[in-house]
């Protein structure tokens, strides 16, 4: 059995030349390695299928937004500026709702995200990915999850993590209307 790292590199297409030859030959000599490689490849196929079925939520990179758009999976989008309430809703046809939060991310190296509904508690998501140069923090949510929400005010915050503490970067408000499509 070779290192899992090398099988993952093979599954992800990271190998070439002699290293590719060595690992492929090893897989053809090792039943346990072949099983693991197949599992890794199955994971990739299953993740693609789940995403296309509208089952995942995630912060995402701009290039992924373009791909999801091309697949027709982003059916609604909101671009939200700080401190400006944004009316929002979801329909029975929505697969993914894309939200882009505008923020000045200059000099920010790490970002935490808080969300909650008005009058309720807040939840924190640590170390969310972002592209500082775009000035946007982008995430997708499943239409099927949003359809379960009642009409409510959703409050979002971005905090820059600096040393041991956090600095509030921006606050956002989205007014979800469960009855409007």
């Amino acid at each position, binding site marked *: 059995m070779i290192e899992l790292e090398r099988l993952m*590199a093979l599954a992800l297409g990271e190998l070439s030349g002699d290293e590719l030859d060595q690992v492929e030959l090893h897989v053809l000599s090792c039943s346990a390695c072949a099983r693991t490689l*197949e599992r890794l490849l199955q994971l990739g196929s*299953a993740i693609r299928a789940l995403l296309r079925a509208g089952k995942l939520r995630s912060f995402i990179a701009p*290039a992924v937004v373009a791909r999801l758009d091309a697949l027709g999976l982003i059916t609604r989008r909101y671009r939200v500026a700080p401190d400006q309430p944004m009316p929002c809703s979801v329909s029975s046809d929505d697969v993914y709702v894309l939200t882009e939060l505008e923020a000045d991310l200059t000099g920010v190296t790490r970002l935490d995200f808080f969300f909650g509904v008005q009058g309720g508690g807040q939840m924190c998501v640590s170390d969310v990915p972002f592209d500082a140069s775009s000035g946007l923090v982008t995430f997708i949510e499943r239409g099927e999850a949003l359809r379960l929400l009642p009409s409510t005010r959703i409050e979002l915050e971005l905090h820059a993590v600096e040393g041991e503490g956090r600095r509030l970067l921006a606050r956002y408000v989205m007014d979800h209307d469960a009855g409007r499509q």
Partner: protein
Amino acid sequence: MAPEEQIDGKLALRIAAGRDPEAEAELCRRFWPRVRAFGLRRLGNEQDARDLAQQVLVITLEALRAGQVQEPERIAAFVMGTCRNALLDRYKVDRRRGELLHQFSAAEAGSYELSVPLDTRRLLGCLEHLPERERAIVIGTYVDEQSGSEISGSLGMEPGSVRVARHRALKRLLECMGGSP
């Protein structure tokens, strides 16, 4: 030489020495999942991978029976060469397959271990438990076929960091799915 390779080599030598249906069946049982994993990576779908496994094992048995394998004790190297040739010349092999299958019944599909389908509900839970940054990288990897450097550019990360995070995420998913090697 690893113990598995020694067993493979002994089986190949038995087949090369004369008609030995038991050795043929055992060699095919051992190589079937390995070639299928190889094919799954190269071809991207299960049916084509199974077809490839069948083609390659037919050709391997044919060559062993005819004494055309120069080093039967290194049979995995011969199988790898056969896999690559089959991929390069799939149409030609397809034409011969039907004609040959009845002569090499040990290579027929159906009697060997099939891959176990992934539990997608469980996978959803495992994805939910990934750190946000890792989930974004996994989605970028599988949905947009992005390389590490493309992801790094769009998430403001170094390519090396993306590679490490991607491997860490895959390892977490494998472990969460109960497939830890």
